[in-house]
């Protein structure tokens, strides 16, 4: 058995794929490429594919990860070529590396995500005003957002402030452009639109519409640094 870790992009055409759609698209792409995909044993064999942090529907990404298991080794250049040729317009292969059985699962290691977000405001604000808003934002210890409780229709308050590690903002006409680094994965997850809500709670004018959200990448925080999930390979 050979383990392969894959880095891929979810393109504009692919941003509306749900997690299930995504799994189907990958399984089919691997089947088309003729790679010797491994399947689980039993009555209902499943392909051995696992994903990193799930991506919200509607969000594009330049740094998603997936692990798959093959029954025999395939030369990496060839593997990349075959996958590239067989992916649908929704997905784009960025890189592939062999990992070992001992490599920690994606879900277990990934804990940071970088997003870019563009939102239309009801009014334009100046750069100085925006800078003030950001410093007000950082000054808060608590920024609460409402989230659904698990298996319940009720909501609870969650403080997202400790899970935001970087945030920059600039105006482009009446569009606010944000770039942020937030917590993700099994240790907790902050959605980019929650950060917008947080900014509104310190005085950002009403957001008319969030136009695009893009995930720039997924990382592992290590010794005050961010490393790629490939570094563990």
């Amino acid at each position, binding site marked *: 058995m050979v383990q392969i870790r894959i880095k891929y992009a979810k393109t504009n055409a692919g941003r509306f794929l749900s997690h299930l759609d995504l799994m189907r698209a990958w399984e089919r792409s691997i089947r088309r490429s003729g790679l010797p995909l491994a399947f689980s044993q039993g009555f*209902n064999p499943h392909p051995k594919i696992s994903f990193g942090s799930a991506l919200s529907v509607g969000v594009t990404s330049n740094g998603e990860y997936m692990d798959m298991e093959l029954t025999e080794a395939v030369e990496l250049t060839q593997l990349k070529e075959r996958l590239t040729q067989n992916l649908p317009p929704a997905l784009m292969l960025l890189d592939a590396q062999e990992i070992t059985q001992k490599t920690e699962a994606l879900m277990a290691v990934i804990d940071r995500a970088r997003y870019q977000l563009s939102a239309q405001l009801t009014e334009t604000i100046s750069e100085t005003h925006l800078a003030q808003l950001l410093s007000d934002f950082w000054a808060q210890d608590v920024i609460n957002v409402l989230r659904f409780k698990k298996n319940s229709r009720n909501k609870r308050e969650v403080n997202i402030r400790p899970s935001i590690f970087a945030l920059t903002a600039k105006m482009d006409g009446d569009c606010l452009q944000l770039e942020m680094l937030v917590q993700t994965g099994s240790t907790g997850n902050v959605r980019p639109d929650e950060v917008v809500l947080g900014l509104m709670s310190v005085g950002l004018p009403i957001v008319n519409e969030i136009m695009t959200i893009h995930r720039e990448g997924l990382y592992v925080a290590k010794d005050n640094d961010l490393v790629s999930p490939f570094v563990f390979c």
Partner: protein
Amino acid sequence: MREYIEQHILNKVEKPLRYLGDELNVVKKDWESVKLRMVFAFPDVYEIGMSHLGLSILYHLTNEQTDYLMERVFAPWSDMEEQLRTHHLPLYALESFRPVKDFDAVGFTLQYEMSYTNILNMLDLSGIPLRYWERSDDDPLIFVGGPCAYNAEPLADFVDVVILGEGEEVNLEFYHALAEHLAKHEGCWHKDELLKELVTIKGLYIPRFYDMTYHDDGTIAAITPNRKEAPKVLTKRYLQQMDHAYFPLKPIVPYLDVVHDRAMLEVQRGCTRGCRFCQAGMLYRPVREKTQMELTQQALAILQHTGHNDLSLTSLSTSDYTGIEPLLKNLVATLAEKNISVSLPSLRVDNFSLGLAKVVQEVKRTSLTFAPEAGTQRLRDVINKGVSEEDLEQVAKMAFTNGWSKLKLYFMIGLPTETDEDIAGIAKLAYKVLAIGDAIRKERGNKGQPPQITISVAGFVPKPFTPFQFEGQVTGEELRRRQQYLRSLINNKRITYNYHDSQVSFIEAVFAKGDRRLGNVLYGAWQKGCKFDGWSEFFDLDWWLEAFEEAGLDPCFYAHRSIDYEETLPWDHIHIGVRKSYLINEHQKALAETVTPDCRQGYCSICGVCQDLAAKVDLKGGDDGANQNKIC
């Protein structure tokens, strides 16, 4: 337009992937480099349309021709319709995001009568005037095809051209004529002239070239061509050679979980079992099989190009394919190691079919479906469903013995000559099958899942071009009484009883056998808001009844009236090969409870297809062709 829709609209609708295109194997052609630009319009949601094999065949066939381009559009769900209307955006085709109105021609497929209002709504959303006389030469040409096109009369006000029959050949002849016309007129339609040119192509029907006159009682007096070029009788087109026929090997693979989310391979066309309620059985005669060798090659190619993990062998009755056993065994053996399963969409009630089910369902042994259609032997003889009580008992025994625990049985209610005894027969059959299952489980010391039976009961809708076209549908009230009667006879937690809304099948019956006067009803109903009438969340009978009243028409006249053999029917000028005299004869045999054997068993009942169309039954046999052309 694309950018605007992507940024401001798609994030506000449920399932944006319905409106985005860009699937694997989609064909995007250069607008400027072709001579004819068309849209294939499917008047229902994406997930249904993308499960339709006809779309896949015609879309890819057309796009493989250098001179033509064909894109797709589906009926937008109500949330998307609202967004398009609020933003004043026209309905667009998925490949290029160009407005549907910009294309030269728009072809709607008619799979189901209850999608007609969606056609009107899609034209309106496209900014195309609905009635042909309101359209100018700048508007696209509107054409229709598919099974309901054989009686497209209710749509006569809205369409320019109707294609009768299988599209593989006639569509290309049609497109050729369209492209020639455009070339001759610098890319513009001169529709009056065009339609006259199209008359010469066999299989094309132009409703406005025919006048209908009516008797005082509402029945048709005469159907008369009003142009000397228009033929008195229009004959359907069909493809004689199914082997070597075009079949798409690189079909589009949707991202969304569509209704039939698997590779589909058509193994044959046509079915001559002769069930008297079945329209497809009459329309798609004769039976024409593909060779095993070609099927195997096509199966592997489609799987290679799509990556699907399930292959479905489709046709009206796949277990009737003469080479089915070796074909299946071969495919299952080849595909098992790739973890690809094979499925059969329809099974006959016999041990042979069960044997096939055993071959394909080695792994997922859950539920098995059969369609006895009626509860007593008498009524099964009336409908010519060649299934006996012993067949069903045997199959049930075999199924339970072989590890299946759930059986689904399909029936119809409201069939001609049906009595309460026949309805009670459905319940009896269900109990009998359950008892068989219980007995077998007892023999095995009550191990495993206890048997479960589901009976699904649909309301009978008489369809044109069937022996039962002369029959009226029972009233909604009577249908509900029969449904409730059956309900009262079933009182067991392990027998599930499903039945359908009778109101939808009432309107379906009206439009199935309707004439062109219904155009006003359709228009009125659409104006009131009718759309997606096949979906219970949208269907509104009151709107329909109002529309009938305003048009001065009685829906019961169409649905409930039994029809005289001598009466001129709205579709009498259309010839599907099967003769009206044959349908009358079959209807009389039905009333006499006499069965008609399948012509594949060697007895020809002279339905007219082989005689009038010079068509041939084409069976390949289990030996891949050596046994072919067995004459009926």
